[in-house]
């Protein structure tokens, strides 16, 4: 199991580093790339946690869809490619304080409660027809049917609304 730990810490470190790049870099494109790294890392963590289906979805949607959107955004707003000191406020600590407070509280609470509970060795949920993907789908169409249907309306609404708002008309 050590390997998993090594994997975990390596990836985690990368993610945190990349995350910091996202929120500190003066180059917007570099920030975007950092974000991609984070997404990838998250997907990898999912794999470690044996949630392949979610991992795949993560990659597809985030890296495939969301990042593209964001890059579009970068293009359409003609952001400077390259260094731009105007990316962050000079009063950065205004953001640091709440962030640290939150992390502090969260960390305290988590460590206090979960201490060092191990994750179960076999983290696979019991498989239907040999794949936990099927399990996901089953529960999604049984218990989570309503939200699932709603998501469709939600996406439709977001799509149409976004278009109406964003389009240059007449």
């Amino acid at each position: 199991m050590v390997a998993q730990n090594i994997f975990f810490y390596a990836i985690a470190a990368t993610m945190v580093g990349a995350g910091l790049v996202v929120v500190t870099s003066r180059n917007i494109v570099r920030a975007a790339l950092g974000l991609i790294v984070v997404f990838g890392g998250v997907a990898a963590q999912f794999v470690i946690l044996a949630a392949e289906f979610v991992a795949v979805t993560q990659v597809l949607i985030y890296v495939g869809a969301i990042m593209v959107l964001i890059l579009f955004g970068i293009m359409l707003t003609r952001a400077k490619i390259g260094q731009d000191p105007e990316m962050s406020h000079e009063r950065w600590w205004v953001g640091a304080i709440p962030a640290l407070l939150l992390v502090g509280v969260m960390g305290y609470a988590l460590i206090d409660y979960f201490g060092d509970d191990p994750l179960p060795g076999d983290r696979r949920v019991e498989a239907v027809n040999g794949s936990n993907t099927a399990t996901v789908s089953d529960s999604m169409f049984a218990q989570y049917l309503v939200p699932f249907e709603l998501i469709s309306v939600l996406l439709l609404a977001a799509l149409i609304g976004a278009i109406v708002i964003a389009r240059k008309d007449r």
Partner: protein
Amino acid sequence: MLENAWIIPLIPAASFFLILLFGKRLPRKGSELGVAAVGIAFVLALATNVQWFDHVDDGGHETEPHAEEVVDGGEEHGLGTVSVGGESAAPAAAAAPAAEEEVHSVEPIEKGWTWFQNGGVDIEVGMLLDGPAVMMLFVVTLVSLLVHVYSTDYVAGDRRYTHFFAFLSLFTASMLGLVMSKTTLQLIVCWELVGVCSFVLIGHWWEEKANSDAALKAFITNRVGDIGLLVGMITLYFAAGQTFDIVEINTLALNGSISQTALLVAACSLIAAVMSKSGQFILHTWLPDAMAGPTPVSALIHAATMVVAGIFMVGRLYGVFFEGLSIGISSVNLLALVGGVTVIGGAGLAFVQNDIKKVLAYSTVSQLGYMVMALGIGAWTAAFFHLFTHAFFKACLFLGSGSVSHAVHSFDMRDMGGLRKWMPHTYKTFVIATAALIGIFPFAGFWSKDEILAGASQLGGEGNYTAFMIVGIVGALMTAAYMTRTIYLTFFGEFRGHGHPHESGPRITVPLWILAVLGVTAGFANIPSALAPDSVALRFEHFYEPRADYFPVENFTHPEFSLGIALGATAIGLLGIGAAYLWYWRGLGPHGVTERSAVAGTGYRVLVNKYYFDHLYTDVIAGGVKGPIARAAYWINQNVIDGVVDGAGRLSTALGRFVYTHVDQQVVDGAVNRSATAANSSGQVLRQLTSGKVQQYGALLFGAAAVFAGAIILFV
């Protein structure tokens, strides 16, 4: 008639409303209504007196069946309850057995209706008819009638002629109601009503500020006294076990079922009321100012009737005072003291007046002092007798002065002089009344004043009230002096005014004569038994002094007539007159000079005379009698005592300003406004929370979430 005497006040009351409503439309502007009403009232009052005499002579025997039929009559007329003193005074039935043997008791006639019910208690309104009440009925209606007649001429052509008579009627009604009050509450009501009438009538010519000032002063000063009245009456109400009934209160006070302290408190508070209403020092200052009213008003209200309400009230609640101040056994008490001081003070101040009405006003003050003093020393009968006589001759004097002013259009004695030639009737009546006031034998004042002095010398505990006898005698001397001066300045010497004075018409002179005659004869109403057969002696005492257990009988004695005091008093009176007359006689000197040398022409003589008289007047009488003492007294009166009264007004106004501007507007109200401002400005500060920068909102959101979570984790 006795049971229905309660009608008497209602007649003038009715005429009051009638005059207000229709007066203006009547041919004589409503005066006829007033005169008629008071006339009827007077006749009825006479009838009442006559019947009362029978009642007294029948004594207690007939009262019982008498009462019975009254009860029937009362009930079949649906007039509510009718009771007779004996019953309402039942708790005190056992009281004063001694009294029973001495004199057979004369039960008062009582008649009452439920006025209102409060706290389950029925408060009664009704009639308490006994000696003093009957006597006052006579006095009030008579003087009022004469004043009415007098006024028809005196205020003729006044722009508020009708209102004048309306309020004269209202006053008469209230005064009659007062003297017949069955309950102290009713007494308070009428007490206030007469006050209002006096307010209105003093301010009759309210166009001039001076008059309305005088009216306000009178009313407010009386209100001050009324504090005492209210407190006293309330104390009695509870002390007597929640009753306003006068007879009951007196009875309980006398048979000792009310604590001495309660009585003392009540008596002292009530004395305050007496001081204001009856112009006793130091609340007397409104009375001279009240002379701003028309003279008939001064005669009726401020000499004959209203001002004696205080004396009457004391006499009414005599049980309370007698016990409360333990009059019978002491040799000095507050009541007598107040009276005594007033006797001297009033007389002293009378010297320095140039306004003839003011002189009379101060003389009234001092005479009222006599009455209060008399009550204070326990000479009830003397006091009421003096009240009786004083009403006539003082009214006569006032009306006389009015008649004079009618002729010379002024009240200032410096504008008069020598009027006896022009106004014989006024002159004669005025002199008679003066004699009565001074107390010359056999004029009315002699008898009444004499009784007071006698009382002072004989009544009370060991040592008697001798001090007050001396006071009385000194008062007599001063009275004699200033009255002589008045007569001299008014009717003798040369006329110093303008125009041609003339005698007033019959509607003025007839009342004067009637009063003058009474001023002579009234004194015989109580001629001492030493000087007359019992059938005529002490009739006043016999008929008018209450003889029932609501009136003090233990340690209550009647002074004997003493020749010494009588002579002494007369001598004193003559001495005072003599002094004044001496100056007057000395003034005749220059006539001789004119006979010897023809050089001195008439003009010169006049000059000299004038000079001489003025010298005489200014240097001797004014300089001597008026003198430093009196002047000082007057100064004190105007600046200290009067200053206190006015000062109180000014002070409270100033205090009011301060409280309003500094406390109310700034502290009390300010607090409110400030808190409002505070809320507003805090709003201004908190607006900064929404700075418009969405990321600061975000910071707040995340920060707040973290802080709340942390806080609750830590503290809960």
